[in-house]
């Protein structure tokens, strides 16, 4: 009574055995990866510009953290190919579910730098309007957002207007039960959702080998009937090709897809982390040399798609963005403590109204200098 599994079905779900690549580390084009359409040249040039701006944004955010203007900042330096590909693979009407490390993807999606950094500055809210930007608040509890992404994908399917959801998650996040439940729900519902695992080698201090014994994380897809792929996440051309292809497939009703992008977190986990405690400088140096931005630049220059002027223009834009950040984020933060009560519920409960009154009285007394 037990049925045979078709080998073909399984093979259609398994990823490639080598990560898909389109450009060698030195920027030389490789043979076009089978089954993938390479992104248009103009898009690649645009991606380059966004990578330059994104990197500058990232560096500026780190500096602002050191100056105490942000509470914390998790850098995505080295992961820009994934970040930019995430933004560029989507249409406006699609949704993005980012983690705390995906500020650069949000920037490339068009969000305002100050809004992006609101939460990391120490506000209690995410800064932007998720519905307006079709971008969920950056998510901290690991992998929890992957299930929301499936729900939203199912909502889009129900509305029937063809939207797709892209959920970002880290290598560490794949260990959480929620990641499993998300893939499983996606598979069963046939939801138009793409999961992009940015495997940057570490979950804070924990290296991938202690995170998973899988041949590669992309091999998790088959267990859910979710098609999968692995890609060189420092190769923007390949990453964008693979993610865009998965998005197109989902849009066409082909169901969910899992992409593992192999990349590296060049900086420490956050400004508060000391990465020297758990990894060797040589390892970091090797990955710095495999920089996705330099690689794309060499590739584009090699193909004659990028001139000095374009690079300079991109850098100029980057400086403008950084300048704006310094200006707008340089001051002290001010928050109205009474706002704490405003958005717990649509209407405050009697209990909250009472507590708000207590705080208001305290603040009034303080303002008069009459408080304790």
């Amino acid at each position, binding site marked *: 009574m037990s049925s045979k599994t078709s080998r073909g079905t399984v093979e259609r779900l398994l990823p490639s055995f080598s990560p898909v690549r389109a450009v060698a580390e030195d920027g030389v084009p490789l043979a076009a990866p089978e089954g993938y359409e390479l992104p248009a040249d103009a898009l690649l040039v645009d991606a380059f510009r966004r990578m330059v701006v994104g990197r500058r944004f990232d560096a500026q955010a780190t500096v602002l953290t050191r100056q105490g203007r942000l509470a914390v900042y998790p850098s995505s330096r080295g992961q820009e190919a994934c970040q930019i590909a995430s933004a560029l693979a989507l249409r406006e009407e699609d949704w993005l579910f980012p983690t705390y490390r995906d500020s650069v993807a949000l920037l490339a999606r068009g969000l305002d730098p100050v809004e992006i950094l609101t939460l990391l500055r120490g506000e209690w809210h995410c800064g932007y309007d*998720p519905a307006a930007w079709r971008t969920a608040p950056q998510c901290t509890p690991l992998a929890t957002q992957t299930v929301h992404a499936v*729900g939203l994908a199912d909502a889009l399917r129900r509305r029937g207007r063809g939207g797709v959801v892209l959920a970002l998650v880290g290598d560490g996040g794949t260990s959480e039960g929620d990641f499993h439940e998300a893939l499983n729900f996606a598979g069963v519902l046939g939801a138009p959702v793409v999961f992009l695992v940015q495997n940057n080698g570490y979950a804070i201090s924990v290296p991938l080998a202690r995170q998973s014994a899988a041949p590669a994380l992309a091999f998790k897809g088959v267990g859910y009937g979710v098609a999968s792929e692995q890609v060189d996440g420092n190769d923007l051309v390949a990453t964008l090709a693979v993610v865009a292809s998965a998005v197109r497939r989902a849009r066409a009703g082909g169901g969910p897809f899992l992409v593992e992008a192999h990349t590296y977190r060049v900086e420490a986990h956050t400004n508060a982390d000391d990465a020297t405690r758990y990894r060797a400088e040589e390892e970091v140096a090797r990955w710095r040399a495999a920089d996705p931005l330099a690689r794309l630049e060499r590739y584009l220059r090699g193909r004659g798609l990028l001139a000095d002027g374009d690079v300079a223009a991109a850098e100029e834009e980057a400086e403008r963005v950084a300048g704006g950040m310094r200006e707008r984020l340089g001051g002290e933060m001010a928050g109205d403590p009474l706002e704490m009560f405003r958005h717990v519920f649509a209407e405050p409960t009697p209990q909250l109204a009472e507590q708000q009154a207590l705080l208001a009285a305290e603040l009034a007394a303080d303002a008069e200098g009459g408080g304790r």
Partner: protein
Amino acid sequence: MAAVTMAGALNGALRDAMRADGDVLVFGEDVGPLGGVFRITDGLTAEFGEERCFDTPLAEAGIVGLAVGLAMGGFRPVVEMQFDAFAYPAFEQIVSHVAKARNRTRGRMNLPLVIRIPFGGGIGGVEHHSDSSEAYYAHTPGLKVVTPATAEDAYWLLRDAVEDPDPVVFMEPKRLYWARGELDRAARAAGPLGRAVVRRPGRDATVVAYGPAVPVALEAARAAAGEGVELEVVDLRSVVPLDDATVTASVRRTGRCVVVQEAQGFAGVGAEVAARVQERCFHSLAAPVLRVAGFDVPYPPPVVEAAHLPGVGRVLDAVFRLQFDDEPDRTHEVSEVAS
């Protein structure tokens, strides 16, 4: 007006809510063709189709997470947790997301979803099937927590919950599923969400109860009346928001108060009510506010559950310890235990 079971009233509320709003979706484990293990969703798939009432894979965090995403996408999910203890896998989703979404988006992203949780014991269930978990949710800022004690409240509270702009944890007292009561579906005034109700007036002491403890309180009141003591029974219905006004007004009138809950007592909802009552009514109180609660033990399966559940006797014992005869500061302790 018709006499229906609480289960029937809940089923009717879901049906009417789904008829009223095409964006209301019902899903969870076995809620489709089976109609739920308690049959609360009976017939919904047949009437509304699999798109609107459907079975999910067996994963509670996934179910609640899916609801979050669907609510973000404009739907109004009503999910069922099969039993109280089986909502725990969804705890992170509930506490870190459901409860906080509105706040962390400055009110831009509300999650009008309902998490239905059959709770409590008294049905002879084996382990993990009789937990009372309302305090976990009530202690979590951002969640509304309600529980009906009658068929009528079951219907209107659930309608209120589905229409509420905020997430509501809807606790269904399992052992009252088959209790019958009147229900008038035409009679909606201001809904019960947020409003306690005086189920029985009385002048001698106030008994505050909710969910499965309400019928116990009422029975105790009937018994006490036989001994000449008139108890006023307040049914909270809504734990969050809590209707302080009704409770406080009653206790200031009666001067005495017993709080009854089925859940284990330590740091439960009854502790909150007792703390609030003495804060607000201290000088009206002739005796301490006493609590009658489940013991602080894992819920005991059938063979001894009757001894665990706060029953009429235990409520009356508390009532008669309310110093109608005055014995300072020995009211509570059955035996003083030194540490």
